[in-house]
């Protein structure tokens, strides 16, 4: 019952006009960003953090704005999947399989509406899951000492590459690269300078916002420059006949068991380290295909094939918030960016957050509920408006993205040096994308590096320099085992899973061509 009381307090925090307005703004912006190919949830939130910060919003307000963007982007990703057969972001990939065929049959409106409802169901119940699961996790996390925390951080890095990773060396490289950058600057414990090479600007270390905006947003601009003339069939959106924009009661009824099952799967995938929304939607789709596809209609515009991945990936988005809030260790790219939001606001997530800043946590959770209803209300009637957004050509959009990135960072630090560093990160981001080195572990390394080192050093000080202290308790042994399994397993499974995802997609595409 305590949970409900806290939640009620949260609603009291979130239900002010300012916060409601911010939630609405965030949902709108998020949906648009999710819908635009090339501007996923991570990019969207990344560009907006420095802005939210320079605008002087207080912690709760900034958090509400940015998490609304996060949820909104998860909703928005499906729009271009269905209309253009181009996923707006990675988790929306599976929605293409049945969403686009539905659009070709003139049922685009129905597909959009149904996927809106499925997104709502997934996100809504996942938020309830968050409400009940996070406090449980907190009570476990309170048992953690420095050694356990060090193991937990290692676990986060080991599993971040994810089950679909094909080259774990590259994930490990990215994590170490981020950690190496985090070490730059004054050592927090002894005050000595590290890796500054006499450069005054480096004394404070590398600002993680500079790195995030450079790696995510600016490198995207370079990617677009590279593929200039291969502009995907943008004009298609205007030609697609949207059709009726409300799903029939029968369709909703048919999809209800599907949505219920896939919400559960998605949520679990979101909570577990190394899975995340993309895997959540993939598992949701393939499970449903196996369970209910008796007539072989999946991939040919079966409504259940639209509902399954959407409920799955939105539930995973909610689930991913559990470890981020309760442990301070994000399990996915976008939650890593949300962690950056919290750190910018001087809030350290983790078990203490629930006792020290309950207004922030519960205000945020209440805002997620409110945002969900807003998104449902926005998405059903206004979907026509969002489809217009797809008509903005990238040649106009991408410069705006680049300039807003500059504005945000300049507003925050006012330093040319930081802007140049951001451009440098943009170039690194582009090269690393080419070489298939994941960018998220870099961000996480920069974010968590100092905290991880502090915990290691604290543990070693307590044990007087005995390294065995790291595996001294059963809790840390468990954490280390998960870390090792999570790192080794993808070496055997990663290729197969990735191939599975690719093959399903290709098969469906071929089917689509034949029909």
């Amino acid at each position, binding site marked *: 019952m305590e949970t409900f009381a806290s939640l009620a307090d949260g609603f009291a925090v979130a239900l002010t006009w300012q916060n409601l307005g911010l939630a609405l703004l965030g949902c709108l912006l998020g949906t648009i960003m999710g819908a635009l190919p090339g501007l996923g949830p991570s990019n969207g939130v990344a560009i907006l953090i420095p*802005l939210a910060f*320079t*605008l002087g919003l207080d912690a709760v307000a900034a958090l509400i704005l940015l998490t609304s963007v996060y949820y909104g982007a998860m909703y928005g990703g499906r729009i271009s999947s269905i209309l253009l057969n181009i996923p707006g972001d990675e988790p929306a990939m599976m929605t293409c399989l049945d969403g686009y065929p539905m659009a070709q049959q003139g049922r685009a409106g129905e597909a959009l509406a149904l996927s809106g409802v499925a997104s709502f169901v997934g996100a809504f119940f996942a938020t309830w899951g968050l409400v009940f699961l996070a406090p449980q996790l907190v009570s476990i996390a309170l048992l953690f000492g420095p050694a356990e925390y060090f193991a937990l951080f290692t676990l986060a890095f080991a599993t971040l590459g994810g089950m679909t990773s094909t*080259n774990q*060396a*590259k994930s*490990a*490289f990215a*994590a*170490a*690269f981020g*950690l*190496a950058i985090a*070490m730059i600057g004054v*050592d927090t*414990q*002894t*005050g*000595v*300078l*590290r*890796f500054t090479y006499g450069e005054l600007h480096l004394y404070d270390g590398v600002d993680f916002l500079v790195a995030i905006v450079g790696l995510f947003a600016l490198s995207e*601009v*370079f990617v*677009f*420059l*590279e593929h*200039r*003339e291969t*502009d995907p069939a943008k004009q298609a959106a205007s030609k697609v006949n949207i059709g009726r924009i409300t799903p029939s009661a029968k369709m909703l009824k048919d999809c209800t068991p599907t949505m219920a099952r896939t919400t559960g799967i998605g949520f679990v995938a979101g909570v577990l380290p190394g899975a995340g929304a993309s895997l959540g939607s993939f598992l949701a789709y393939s499970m449903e295909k196996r369970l209910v596809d008796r007539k072989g209609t999946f991939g040919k515009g079966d409504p259940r094939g639209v509902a399954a991945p959407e409920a799955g990936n939105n539930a995973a988005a909610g689930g991913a918030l559990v470890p981020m809030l309760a442990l301070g260790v994000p399990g996915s790219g976008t939650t890593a960016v949300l962690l950056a939001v919290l750190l910018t606001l001087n809030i350290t997530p983790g078990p203490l957050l629930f006792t020290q800043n309950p207004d922030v946590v519960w205000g945020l959770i209440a805002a997620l509920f409110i945002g969900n209803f807003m998104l449902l209300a926005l998405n059903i009637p206004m979907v026509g408006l969002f489809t217009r957004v797809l008509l903005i050509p*990238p*040649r*106009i959009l*991408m*410069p*705006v993205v*680049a*300039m*807003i990135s*500059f*504005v945000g960072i*300049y*507003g925050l630090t006012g330093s*040319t040096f930081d*802007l*140049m560093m*951001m*451009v440098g990160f*943009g170039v690194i981001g*582009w090269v690393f994308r080419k*070489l*298939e080195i994941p960018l998220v572990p870099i961000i996480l390394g920069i974010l968590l590096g100092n905290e*991880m080192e502090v915990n*290691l*050093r*604290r543990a*070693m*000080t307590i*044990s007087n*320099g005995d390294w065995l202290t790291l595996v001294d308790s059963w809790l840390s042994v468990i954490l280390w085992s998960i870390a090792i399994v999570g790192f080794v397993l993808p070496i055997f499974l990663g290729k197969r899973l990735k191939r599975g995802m690719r093959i399903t997609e290709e098969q469906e595409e071929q089917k689509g061509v034949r029909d």
Partner: protein
Amino acid sequence: MSDRVLGGISLALALFYIYSATTIRESFVSDEIGPKTFPIIVGVILGICSLYFILKPDPEPRWPRFNRLAEIGFAVLVCLLYANLLPRLGFLIATALAAGYLTWRLGTRPLMAVVVGVGTSVGIYVVFRLILGLSLASGILGL
């Protein structure tokens, strides 16, 4: 091949990083393992991964042709110029120039690119400076 080049560069960086870590001057108050140990561990992991890239490189990624590479190079140059000239020229002028260049290179026709550049600049100025009150570089226009 690309992975091998990456491995070579990052191996050199890792060695340099470890060397730098060993030269960190310890202060007289220190904890059990001091400020050197963790960076050295990180450097070693970087080194091991680099060796792996050299020994077992992934298949070659598809690099863009030379002119496209030059395109990206010029865009990077414009971004760096922008970063340096922003305080001097001020937000409005610098942004109009940079945004105009980028949209031109992304395929907008030259005359339209001027319009888009100025539009982007003024649009951002109105939203962020006039409505939201953010401080943008004022520069020679003094706005």
